[in-house]
């Protein structure tokens, strides 16, 4: 039995949730990146999580980011003929980033991150207390 497997599990979750936070940051940062070509417009990034064994001999699954998928929603088309990047018909294309959805995602990721930090803190306290009890 590895007494420290719990740290691998909670640690894998911290890593995955921070990837999710990074994806939210990237999506929000690029929300205003308009182009004149619908094919080159920024596609919002969506991390896909997967349960997986994180260490040898550990039967309980941690989590990892299986892939960072592109959101396939159509870009937002706006008629702005005066825009320097507008195509010949006067349209510009913005990424389909929903700011509200991204903020919700961010709060969810932050809460999950906190929960896992809490798990690590408790696991550390219990482990230290156990070691202390056995070595006195």
């Amino acid at each position: 039995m590895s007494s420290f497997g719990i740290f691998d599990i909670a640690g894998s979750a911290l890593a995955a949730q921070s990837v999710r936070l990074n994806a939210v940051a990237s999506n929000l940062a690029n929300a205003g990146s308009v182009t004149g070509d619908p094919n080159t417009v920024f596609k919002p990034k969506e991390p896909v999580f997967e349960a997986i064994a994180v260490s040898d001999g550990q039967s309980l699954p941690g989590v990892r980011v299986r892939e960072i998928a592109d959101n396939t929603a159509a870009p937002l088309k706006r008629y702005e003929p005066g825009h320097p990047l507008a195509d010949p018909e006067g349209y510009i294309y913005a990424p389909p980033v929903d700011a509200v959805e991204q903020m919700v995602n961010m709060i969810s990721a932050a809460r999950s991150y906190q929960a896992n930090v809490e798990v690590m803190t408790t696991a550390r306290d219990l482990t230290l207390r156990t070691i202390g009890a056995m070595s006195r």
Partner: protein
Amino acid sequence: MVSDDASHASQAKTAVAGPLDNLLGIQGTALSLHRARIDQIASNIANADTPGYLARDIDFEQALQRAAGSADAGVDIARTAPGHLNAHNSAGAPARQVYRIPLQPAQDGNTVELSTENAKFAEAAMRYQATLTFIEGRMNTLKTAIKGGE
């Protein structure tokens, strides 16, 4: 000659270890089961946002009876592919896993509810500490016996 020595040594070891074998009684088993349960709930919390993940818990009472040998051994799940998860907990003791029934099922098939898991985690941590306190008391008792009350 060598083998004789070895057998003497092993006899001596058995004689010494005998009364101390069951030093902690059921509490030692309970501690490792609590630990396994804490690990299981940590795994649930880690997978709180994984689509399709089913939250699990350990049936503590049944696991303890089984570890103490008073319940029937039951059956284990066969692992026919390398990707299959082991039905045994990390302590190596067989523990029956049970699925958590979600209060509000999610669209993505995930049954982890962070509030429930947080509560269960706090409960498991508290039980672990309680068991640890019993063990500490037991060790203090033994220490007093060894030192002759000094």
